[in-house]
């Protein structure tokens, strides 16, 4: 453990805010989903790092990282099913065009 904890956290900080930037700027819904995956991944790194450096004898962070990965997989599968269904209806997956249900 020669590398201090803060290095890992700064790494996941950069990854998380790259995800935030992508989520705000992108119009394509698949790109927004990729940004969400980046953010979730950064949070998983934080779980593992806090577990390893602050509570080395326990395994709560690891267990919750595994739960987070499982839930992220479920969320992505559902989101991609919805996106493909939307594409089938309006031939387009830009978030700006999704106002059919508004009126």
């Amino acid at each position, binding site marked *: 453990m020669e590398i201090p904890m*803060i290095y890992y956290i700064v790494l996941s900080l950069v990854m998380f805010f790259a995800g935030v*930037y992508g989520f705000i*700027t*992108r119009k394509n819904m698949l790109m927004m989903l990729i940004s969400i995956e980046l953010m979730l991944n950064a949070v998983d790194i934080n779980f593992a790092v806090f577990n390893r450096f602050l509570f080395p004898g*326990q*395994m709560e962070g690891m267990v919750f990282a595994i739960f987070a990965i499982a839930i992220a997989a479920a969320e992505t599968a559902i989101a*991609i099913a919805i996106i493909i269904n939307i594409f089938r209806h309006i031939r387009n997956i830009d978030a700006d065009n999704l106002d059919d249900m508004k009126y």
Partner: protein
Amino acid sequence: MELLPLAQQVLFYLLAIVIVVCSILAVTTRRILRAATYLLFVLLSTAGIYFMLDYTFLGSVQIAVYAGGILVLFVFSILLTSHPGESCEKSSLTKRILGIVAALTGAAVCAYALFTYQWPAVDLIETGEHPIKALGHALIGMDKFQYLLPFEAVSVLLLACIIGAILIARKR
């Protein structure tokens, strides 16, 4: 992982460079398939970080579920919804400025909180890798620090997700 200190540092900086560069490229490139490829590199390097921290099981789950499963889903849906080689239109300037401002403000606030917080001093006992048996008992036990209920909730969630995905995406 038992590594020499120098080798550990070299490995960490290599993984860190790959993660930072590829995650920024993934959100700025205009080809969507390339974004998925950069995401693959980020996920694999994250698995490398887990291996460095002695969480080999977590790293293998990361490779199997994220890099193996979710990435394939992404690539399939990208190929289904866009023509290969087509790049998405540029996002507007105001949106990009808004994104940069939001990301930099958030990062600054978080970095300030991180660097001013007094981390509790923990004596770093070298625990090595957690035995996989202990992890299994923690996942399906009912005592304190054991997680049978969330485990079963996740299994029901995955079942609901399978049924929901089939229902939503099937052809009418």
